[in-house]
């Protein structure tokens, strides 16, 4: 049996010299004098420091294939990074309590029912208020961040404008994406309806996708560009992105669509604007819209 002493050591403090410190600071200081308080706060800080690198580490697998290739993906990475950072304090604190409990408060083992009992703390107003406040502030921060980011992304896509009424200005490119078991086809209505099975995108120009399916639900996922929308049979969904990096990227289907769902992949070629136009022309479609 390990001895555990939760009693305060020594007599209470002698009256302090008069100071300007508010009484609550006395309470905090006195609380910190308790051995477990120091231990848990210290452990929280230590675990927090150990957990901080996760915010960077988590981005490494996300960048395995060339991400980020758009501002949307950059925003996603930033969000993951920030969310990890703000979660670290609460996680560190909870884990610190777990660890400290295992280190310092273990007292009995075996079959005998313990004779001692612990302090009968049925509530702690300060603790409850602190926790509620912190978790609410955290949730509020996450919500506001998320809403702003979502608004930015949505402004990059058509939302719910029907395919017939989409503007075709000089800059933007419209792609009609059709998913079917188990192949993606892309049609460029502004380029004489050229149809491809590889997705060609121009760099630094806004691209709008109209997506549908001919049979079951598929999911149109441009991995490194951070674009994802379901391809539904009987509906047209929309999204959009502006690629900002050249290269060959991945399009994967992210909704189980039958036997060869695993193979429903193709490549996304982001090329310079002029290269894009010449590729379209080679395929038989000059720019008409």
């Amino acid at each position: 049996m390990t001895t555990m002493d939760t009693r305060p050591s020594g007599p209470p403090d002698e009256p302090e010299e008069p100071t300007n410190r508010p009484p609550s600071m006395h309470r905090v200081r006195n609380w910190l004098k308790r051995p477990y308080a120091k231990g848990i706060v210290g452990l929280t800080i230590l675990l927090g420091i150990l957990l901080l690198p996760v915010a960077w580490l988590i981005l490494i697998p996300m960048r395995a294939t060339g991400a980020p290739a758009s501002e949307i993906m950059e925003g996603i990475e930033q969000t993951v990074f920030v969310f990890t950072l703000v979660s670290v304090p609460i996680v560190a604190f909870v884990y610190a309590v777990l660890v400290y409990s295992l280190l310092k408060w273990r007292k009995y083992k075996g079959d005998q029912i313990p004779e001692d009992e612990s302090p009968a703390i049925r509530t702690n107003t300060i603790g409850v208020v602190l926790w509620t406040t912190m978790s609410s502030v955290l949730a509020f921060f996450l919500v506001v961040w998320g809403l702003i980011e979502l608004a930015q992304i949505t402004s990059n896509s058509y939302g719910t404008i029907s395919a017939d009424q989409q503007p075709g200005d000089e800059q933007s490119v419209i792609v009609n994406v059709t998913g079917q078991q188990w192949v993606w086809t892309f049609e460029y209505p502004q380029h004489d309806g050229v149809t491809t099975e590889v997705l060609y995108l121009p760099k630094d120009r806004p691209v709008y996708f109209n997506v549908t399916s001919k049979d079951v639900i598929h999911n149109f996922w441009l991995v490194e560009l951070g674009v994802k929308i379901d391809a539904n049979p009987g509906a047209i969904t929309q999204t959009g992105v502006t690629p900002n990096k050249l290269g060959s990227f991945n399009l994967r289907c992210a909704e189980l669509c039958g036997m060869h769902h695993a193979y429903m992949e193709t490549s996304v070629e982001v090329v310079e604007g002029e290269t894009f136009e010449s590729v379209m022309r080679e395929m038989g479609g000059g720019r008409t819209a």
Partner: protein
Amino acid sequence: MSTAQAKPEQPKSPGKEQPRYPTTGEPISTIARRAKAGLWTLIVMDAAGTIAIIIAYSYLWSLNVNGGWAPPGASLTGSETDQSLPSSPPTASFAVEWPFWAIFGLVIISTLAMWFGYRELKRGNHAGMVVGTGAALVVAVGALVAQWIQISTFPFAAGDGAYASAVLLLCASNIFNLLILIFLQLGMLIRTSKGLVSQAVHYQPQILSYWMVWLCIAFLLGAICTSFMVESPNLDPAIFGTFQQQS
């Protein structure tokens, strides 16, 4: 927690000896309270199921996917975009509305008869209870027959689009509810004649009466849908598999 020795539960009103439930010996008022709580939970469950049907009906009505809401032949948006093989000749159309209200009316009458019977039972008029329950049963059977006739004379079949599917499911749910209701009413009648339902032990017709009120609401919801949400508001659905609108 202390486990003080205590006498078994006394009946709620010591002045008047309450009947006891045979299996557990508890006073009937305890059992009645439990049964009523059980009824509320059952109503929540059935309400969730009814709402699921209403959601299906109204959501499909609002979407009119591929123009397939209306039965083919019923309206303009019916047949042109339909790329499937309809299972009925293009004379299928929406159902007539008044039968839904008629059946709803029958359910109301049955409920009122049941309430009448229950009220008479509480007053000690045993014969009144039998009359009320019997009348409720007969009317419920009438509602069942009417519902069956309605289903068999619908101007569409199950394969005729989303409206047809939703209405048939609604009617099937009505049939199911009516079958259970008839079972319960029959049981109530038999038990009353055997004395198991009496002025002293009346919680079962009580909860049956409450249940019937819920049934009225369920039938009402169906009648409202089929009367006020018939033609789809979406006149311009996309054509399946393409990027074009109807127009």
